[in-house]
């Protein structure tokens, strides 16, 4: 049986979530916009899921817009405020935006494509954005700031409250991509005063192909997809009912099982890090930072990350170097570069991300296999040369 340690890329659909989805795939047919009884049943399921997702985010149900996933949610908030959106609302478009240098590509790319000016908020060596860094880049015409709740590669958790405070004082909107944080740490959309938050289902044992944007009613958001009045006209398109119902269930389970999941995966992280420290020349990234209780990113000096990944795969262990979306490229991670990690170490990065199904035995297997590979290669003259 293979060992899956890439839960930040995607998670296995939970059986109970699948059970909730199946009736909508199998027995219940209907378009939620249809007025007949087939349609009404679908509408009820969507509204229930909206409550469940809202609860996970610490928000209200009427603040939830369902989308096709995290990428669409990030694009919706950025494009929906930019000059590229249709102006249904009277408010002026945002022309200048500030984002942290460690954001996911689905924030960085639309920021570059849609705004006149993008300012980048630096992070320190531990991957933290601090208030000072933020204040330095904010200008009078900055309209939106986007800083992720937790990073997908390093797992570093930002302390958002001072950043939000700083934006609110200046009347600037604050968005956070909580795709990786959801289900791993508590989210407080309303209590923290966040204007918009991105969530994805397939990172919390829900189905791929569904996500949400949580938006405060004061945000003058414009639609980016047109052709029907679904989601209060903010997101046209027939709702993916089975997936939305599954997202709801996954969110409910994430809320209720949060502590248990945290305890379980944190224990695995601690065990892994203890083992890694016995290997010479290992770096654990952002080791001093507050990190997600499931993510450990590290490097073994002298071992090119991609080749180590392949060797682990041959031993039936699935890990990654960082973001799945950019897997396959051999450029150093932009996140590690932003933390001023030298390129040769960054290229050696391996990310282990645990999930609820992983076990202590699997961590031990990983450590043993790592030892084997490293010892074998360190004996070979080529690797010796590489590690010098």
């Amino acid at each position, binding site marked *: 049986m293979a060992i899956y340690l890439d839960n930040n890329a*995607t998670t296995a659909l939970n059986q109970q979530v699948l059970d909730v989805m199946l009736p909508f795939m199998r*027995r219940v047919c209907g378009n939620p916009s249809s007025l007949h009884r087939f349609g009404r049943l679908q509408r*009820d399921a969507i509204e229930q899921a909206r409550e469940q997702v809202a609860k996970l985010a610490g928000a209200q149900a009427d603040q939830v817009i369902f989308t096709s996933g995290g990428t669409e949610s990030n694009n919706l908030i950025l494009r929906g405020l930019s000059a590229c959106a249709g102006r249904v609302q009277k408010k002026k478009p945002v022309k200048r935006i500030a984002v942290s240098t460690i954001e996911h590509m689905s924030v960085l790319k639309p920021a570059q494509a849609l705004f006149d000016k993008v300012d980048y908020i630096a992070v320190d060596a531990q991957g933290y954005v601090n208030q000072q860094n933020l204040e330095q880049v904010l200008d009078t015409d900055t309209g939106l700031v986007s800083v992720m709740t937790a990073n997908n590669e390093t797992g570093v958790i930002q302390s958002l409250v001072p950043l939000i405070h700083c934006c609110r004082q200046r009347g600037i909107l604050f968005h956070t991509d909580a795709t990786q944080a959801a289900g791993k740490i508590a989210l407080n959309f309303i209590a923290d005063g966040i204007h918009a938050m991105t969530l994805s289902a397939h990172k919390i044992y829900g189905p791929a192909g569904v996500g949400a944007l949580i938006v405060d009613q004061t945000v003058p958001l414009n639609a980016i997809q047109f052709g*029907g009045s679904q989601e209060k006209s903010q997101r046209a*398109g027939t709702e993916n009912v089975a997936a939305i119902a599954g997202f709801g269930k996954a969110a409910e389970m994430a809320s209720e099982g949060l502590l248990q999941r945290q305890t379980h995966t944190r224990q695995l992280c601690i065990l892994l890090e203890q083992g890694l420290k016995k290997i010479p020349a290992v770096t654990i990234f952002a080791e001093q930072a507050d990190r997600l209780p499931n993510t450990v990113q590290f490097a073994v000096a002298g071992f090119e990350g991609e080749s180590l990944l392949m060797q682990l795969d041959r031993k039936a262990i699935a890990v990654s170097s960082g973001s799945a979306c950019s897997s396959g490229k051999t450029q150093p991670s932009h996140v590690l570069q932003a933390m001023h990690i030298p390129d040769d170490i960054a290229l050696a990065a391996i990310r282990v991300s645990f999930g609820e199904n992983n076990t202590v035995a699997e961590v031990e297997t990983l450590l043993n296999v790592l030892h084997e590979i490293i010892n074998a290669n360190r004996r070979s003259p080529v690797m010796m040369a590489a590690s010098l």
Partner: protein
Amino acid sequence: MSKQISQAIDNQAANSQISDRPIYMDYSATTPIDERVVTEMLKYMGPASTFGNPASRSHSYGWEAEAAVEQARKNIADLVGANPKEIIFTSGATESDNLAIKGSAHFNQKRGKHIITSKTEHKAVLDSCRQLEREGFEVTYLDPMENGLIDLDVFSNAIREDTILASVMHVNNEIGVIQDIAAIGNICRENKIVFHVDAAQSAGKIEIDLANLPVDLMSFSGHKIYGPKGIGALYVQRKPRVRIEAQMHGGGQERGMRSGTLATHQIVGMGEAFRIARQEMKAENERLLELRNKLWNGVKDMEEVYVNGDLNQRVAGNINISFNFVEGESLLMALKDLAVSSGSACTSASLEPSYVLRALGRNDELAHSSIRFTLGRYTTEDEVDRAIKHLRSAVEKLRQLSPLWDMYKAGIDLDSIEWAAH
């Protein structure tokens, strides 16, 4: 799941075993997922499945998911005569239409800012065009002929120097008429206009051979063809290469044209649905045509009953009928045991008369009294028989209550009456 909802689902499932369940004749709104499709999807759902992220390149979980996605891409391409590399996955036909129209218009805006479409398009096309108007584009909305088809001369006459894009649906969602997209496409080619076709309602219902059709962009849906909701595709021709501007940016999936994690189970489901359609389309069409004709023959002898849209150049499963002097919404309510619609599902929350029927020149009365029946894979002859019975009795009952019907029967020309304002 709340007790109420699961109870309702169980009730509905139980009902489906007995003969008085509501008869589903709204296959153009959405179709049930074919059980064979569900079986394929389940291989990619759940803890024991192949659940990797297709973009994960460092392990076999990712590779297996990617292989499944590529097989589905091939299945979809095969049904419509395309190359798999020409198929881009989206979250549905609405996104495909948005991406095709806005993406193409934005990419080509330096060449011109004029777009041609028709008044009977789906909202996803019309609203994308309205958005482009807000951005400074000009759009010509063509009136169709009375039978719902576009007059080729009218189309040609609408072309201007600065026309960059035309969007015409293959099959209309309300009246089921089939446009001559080959002829319209040829006119577009002659005039170097990018041609987009919304094929959400035609894929799997009529032959599509993109290798020989002059079409640059074509939208597809999963849930209109017995596949899952939340998945669609856009055909983007490669030779010569058609360029569009991405509407969603991020990880660069789908060759940069559409970022976002690919939903493997959804894509596999859509692929299987297209594979089945390719195998069964011919036999299914013959069966549906018979049922459709039976339905129409069962009501056409009633007084003041009209078919909307051309009866011959039309997909097999669709019939759209106006029952004059009967209000459509009342008829829908009276037909509680029949799941049908008075138009498109996307606009059914509004009580406005169908804009499609208005565009055909139907007056408000007839547009208001229309019902769309769309039959599909699981429609039975017995259901058609029962539908005819329900329908005849409901129409007769409602007409008995209608003062307009009395006046009509008394021989009063309703158009000559001057209604008093009040």
